[in-house]
């Protein structure tokens, strides 16, 4: 069928139209796909709409794609005229079949800039293309461009607000600004969903995860609540994708951002004041920070507010890292033999170690006695599994850490009182130490016979000795 040029012409025009009509008929299409079908069935459109899924029969792709491709190139070379509506339809068909065709996205950028296309439309088209091609770099790149347009629009309104400070204009602007920030919050949420979906469709989908990072950096900067929510909502996801390095890298990014942006020491806090206006980007009330104030009741009220913040940061950061290491221990024990988990542990412990050193440095340079909180630590460990205790005991008896008497002193069996305190949510400072890491590795080596797992454990031990051991 449809071999001659004219026939192809007719066929393609029909298919492009069918696709456009399908979107008009059902605005809720949420997935596209190719249906394996080597031959055409006469008098039936190759475009199939089932529920909210749009399918293209595979036989027509080889006619369709080169044809629309050429047509768009001819338009670009000014050899062939297409009106705006035709351009919208042709680029749509083209991008659903081949979303890495940059020229088509560029044509859409122009249409968007002259107001023919709404930004939402392009985000939607990209989202559909990603259901079939979850990695497509050009689609992600275009998404970021569209999001930047939306952000610029938001900033422009914010700017106007500062200039006109009078009466009705101000109120109208405030309303508009509220609308826009709601809209932005929805867009952010939607982007997170698109990224999750793509990450599920393709394992270790670097493009999707790095897009997610970009979105947070540009649309939620300074908004601690969003970062905290992300950290907790990704917990289950990484637990079910224990070899997805990109997913764990995203957690590392979140941790890093949280400690540098939100729990930095008071001295450096002012530097970041410029990002303050971003807090309004997405409505937030940072409940997490408030709850932390309560756990900090021991501090005397005479202490300066900044001092209070510093202590607050410390307990919160410690809690963050403890929870992350606990999650990591749990996953390593449940799913032996995944290198991703071990490299995540390295990164988390390294981050913690760096942060702790910085704090100590700052404390000692300021000459106050807060470093006591860091070193004068209670015994106790975050994991309460009997295995890890057994392992620890052995490492003490065996004097493996004889070269670090300070560390060994700290390692005694925790009493029940401590674990009760842990359950109450009161933190034990210093529970994340080189010694606790060593005892974790030893407990794995003592109990596990999976050869891969043992190899990773030994490598981690070596890393602790060389990289971390030399630092401290």
């Amino acid at each position: 069928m449809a071999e001659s040029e004219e026939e192809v012409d007719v066929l393609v025009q029909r298919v492009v139209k069918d696709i456009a009509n399908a979107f008009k008929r059902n605005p809720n299409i949420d997935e596209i796909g190719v249906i394996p079908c080597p031959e055409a069935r006469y008098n039936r459109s190759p475009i199939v709409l089932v529920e909210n899924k749009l399918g293209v029969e595979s036989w027509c792709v080889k006619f369709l794609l080169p044809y629309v491709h050429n047509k768009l190139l001819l338009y670009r070379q000014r050899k062939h005229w297409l009106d705006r509506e035709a351009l919208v339809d042709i680029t749509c068909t083209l991008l659903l079949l081949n979303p890495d065709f940059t020229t088509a996205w560029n044509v859409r950028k122009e249409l968007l800039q002259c107001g023919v296309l709404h930004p939402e439309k392009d985000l939607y088209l990209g989202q559909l293309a990603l259901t079939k091609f979850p990695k497509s770099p050009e689609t992600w790149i275009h998404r970021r461009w569209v999001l930047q347009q939306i952000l610029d629009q938001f900033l422009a309104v914010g700017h106007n607000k500062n200039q006109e400070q009078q009466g009705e204009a101000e109120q109208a602007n405030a309303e508009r600004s509220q609308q826009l920030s709601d809209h932005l919050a929805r867009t952010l949420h939607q982007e997170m969903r698109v990224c999750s979906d793509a990450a599920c469709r393709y394992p270790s989908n670097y493009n999707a995860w790095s897009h997610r990072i970009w979105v947070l950096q540009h649309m939620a900067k300074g908004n601690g609540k969003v970062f905290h929510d992300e950290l907790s909502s990704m917990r289950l996801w990484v637990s079910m994708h224990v070899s997805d390095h990109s997913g764990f890298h995203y957690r590392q990014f979140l941790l890093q951002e949280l400690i540098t942006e939100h729990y930095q020491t008071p001295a450096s806090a002012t530097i970041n004041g410029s990002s303050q206006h971003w807090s309004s980007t997405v409505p937030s009330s940072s409940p997490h920070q408030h709850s932390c104030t309560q756990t900090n009741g021991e501090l005397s009220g005479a202490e300066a507010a900044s001092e209070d913040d510093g202590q607050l940061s410390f307990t919160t950061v410690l809690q963050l890292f403890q929870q992350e290491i606990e999650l990591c221990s749990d996953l390593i024990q449940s799913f032996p033999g995944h290198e991703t988990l071990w490299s995540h542990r390295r990164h988390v412990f390294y981050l913690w170690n760096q942060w702790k050193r910085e704090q100590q440095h700052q404390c000692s340079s300021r000459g106050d006695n807060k470093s006591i909180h860091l070193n004068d630590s209670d015994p106790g460990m975050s994991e309460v599994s009997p295995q890890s205790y057994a392992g620890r005991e052995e490492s003490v008896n065996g004097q493996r850490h004889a070269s670090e008497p300070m560390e060994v002193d700290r390692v005694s069996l925790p009493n029940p009182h401590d674990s009760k305190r842990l359950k109450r949510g009161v933190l034990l400072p210093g529970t994340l130490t080189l010694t606790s890491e060593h005892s974790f590795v030893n407990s794995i080596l003592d109990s596990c016979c999976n050869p891969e797992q043992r190899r990773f454990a030994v490598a981690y031990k070596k890393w602790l000795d060389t990289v971390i051991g030399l630092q401290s």
Partner: protein
Amino acid sequence: MKLYSLSILHKGATKANLLKAAYDLSSFSFFQRSSVQEFMTFTSALIVERTSQGSRASVKEQEYLCHVYVRNDNLGAVVIADTEYPQRVCFTLLDKVLEEFSRQVDSIDWPSGTPDTINYKALDIHISKYQNPREADAMTKVQAELDETKIILHNTMESLLERGEKLDDLVAKSEHLGNQSKAFYKTARKQNSCCEIM
């Protein structure tokens, strides 16, 4: 980690007979699901046919692992999972469903049964519960019970086949695979793309 299919079969003299199956194909593209399901059924039957009585095996095919257990009474079960999913949980699951199935369904019905005639409904519940292996099973216990060295590991489907046999021929000859699935297999084979097929 994901479980895609869980099926119970009876190993006959030459053919394996499907008794009951459950699938979770939500992670596949909508238009591929029916073909993927046919391929999972086809693969499960093939694996049971080529696995000897009283043995356990794991067959790796692209990024999928098919775990099989055929008991001495010729009742067999296959679970198809991704490579992340812990192997020993799969074998516990197989033990468990076979035990349950043989208690509920009379062995007279095994050789001639079909998914429509067999009255055993628990597979769907098992496959959804076991999607999260940690909630489904106390794994420490499983570790003690299963001797992993006794599980035969095949690195490809091809290694199950006899000399001169080809997977492509078996697919082409199969009565259980529809035309669309066969076309699907051919394109996937050509592109050598794992996600496309099964």
